[in-house]
């Protein structure tokens, strides 16, 4: 029950989807379509699981009065307020059949006033840290580091006036060294070669891991029950 059934489910679902590519007819085509829809629906339960887990962790933290437990009250309150506003469609025009994100609804208001600025600012903080990292860690210590530095330098100055004025005077036969042209070349030749090699490596890794999962060789997702 704890091990065999999950292994069987993974095998049947995985192998059916692979066969559906090579035999695009029923029953495999139908299975591919149905499994995709089932997967989409189950994904919603993953969101609910995430929310439930967050609530569980923070409520326990409040109960045990662990370090910074007072901030957990903020998390739980924010969660409850946003969820209540959305699920109950508070303030939405049209009642239960109205748009839950409709203008004037509390959910919409909280999104604009809190969620949107918080998420946007959280990510924008990285601009400061990336600048600090550029100053402290971006050093031409070795040949490899110098290549990295030069490539980044070309990309960074490309949209700036410096990128233009540094090399605009080059004669026509040397125009390929003009920074905007050089930037395009760096991206579409060495960058592309490096990214392609990484992509091929990742693809091989994913293909082999997928096979191991489908065949039941890789069982770490079963936890301790998967051993042996």
């Amino acid at each position, binding site marked *: 029950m704890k091990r065999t059934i999950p292994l069987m489910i993974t095998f049947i679902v995985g192998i059916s989807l692979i066969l559906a590519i090579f035999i695009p007819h029923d029953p495999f085509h139908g299975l591919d379509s149905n499994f995709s829809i089932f997967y*989409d629906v189950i*994904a919603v339960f993953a969101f609910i699981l995430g929310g439930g887990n967050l609530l569980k962790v923070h409520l326990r933290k409040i109960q045990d009065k662990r370090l910074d437990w007072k901030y957990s009250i903020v998390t739980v309150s924010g969660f409850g307020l946003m969820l209540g506003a959305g699920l109950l469609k508070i303030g939405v025009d049209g009642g239960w059949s109205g748009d839950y994100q409709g203008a004037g609804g509390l959910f919409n208001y909280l999104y604009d006033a809190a969620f949107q600025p918080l*998420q946007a600012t959280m990510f924008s903080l990285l601009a400061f840290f990336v600048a600090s990292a550029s100053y402290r860690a*971006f*050093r*031409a210590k070795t040949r490899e580091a110098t290549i990295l530095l030069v490539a980044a330098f070309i990309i960074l100055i490309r*949209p700036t006036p410096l990128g233009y004025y540094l090399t605009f005077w080059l004669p026509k036969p040397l125009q390929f060294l003009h920074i905007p042209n050089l930037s395009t070349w760096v991206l579409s030749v060495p960058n*592309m070669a490096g990214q392609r090699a990484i992509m091929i490596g990742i693809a091989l890794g994913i293909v082999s891991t997928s096979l191991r999962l489908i065949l039941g060789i890789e069982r770490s997702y079963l936890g301790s029950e998967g051993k042996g």
Partner: protein
Amino acid sequence: MAEESKNVTFFEKLGTLDRRWIFLMIALAVIIPLIMKYTTSIPTSPLVQRLFDKTEDLPPGSKILMSFDYGPSTAPENQPMADAFTRHAFEKGHRVYLMALWPTGARQSLQLIDELINVEFPEKGYGTDYIHLGYKAGNQGLINTLLSDFTAMYTTDIEGTSIDEFPMMEGIRTLRDFDLILGLGSGFPGTKEWVQFAGDPGDIPVGGGTTAVMAPLLYPYYPKQMVGFLGGLQGAAEYEYALIQAYPEYMQKSRLASTSMGPQVTAHLVIVAFIIIGNITFLVERSRRKRY
């Protein structure tokens, strides 16, 4: 000797500069050009031009699926792309289908409708020229579903009206019925998944508009698997440039990315200066260490 030790102290100080000074410099590098309204135009690169040309060459009435796979966190990069592309698509008389793989994406497409379509294209009809299908869960699984049966997941538009009631949904059975897919993304699921799960298996032209972080990773797909793509704010500014070149009437309207490129350029110069100073400090200290 006294002069040398003074220099060393200076470089040592530079090497251990409090990072909050760097933060302040970056903040000023962005704020000052914003206040001064410094803008700059970026000539179109071949990668962006190809996507522009593809949209330009599609016959009027072509069906373009735009997927909003991002949220407020990367909206300053992605939203100008959506704006510039929508202007171009409507200019050419194409039909635009808006959807999202990210829960936050549907809000970004609502913003597009409220702030751009309703303002600049009031003559375009909902359900005939554009439709908002909203978000569905499932990530790459959703794309897989849509490839075989579009209506299996999208039974209604974002407001719950059956899609059978919209004329522009006629004939849409699978993703193969679209003439172009534009994945506006900032991570997983996003543009890459549109190539893997729709473009390649369905032989559907896929274009992209991605954050600058994602852009270098997509180069291996170009030009065989992707029509072209916009990389970050710079890509959006390049698309705006191409649009203005082809349709000068957008000179005043389509400037969002170009306006934001002003602070971008200044901040780049400050960071380049940091890198140069950092390396000079490093070289001076290394030569000093070698000497003693």
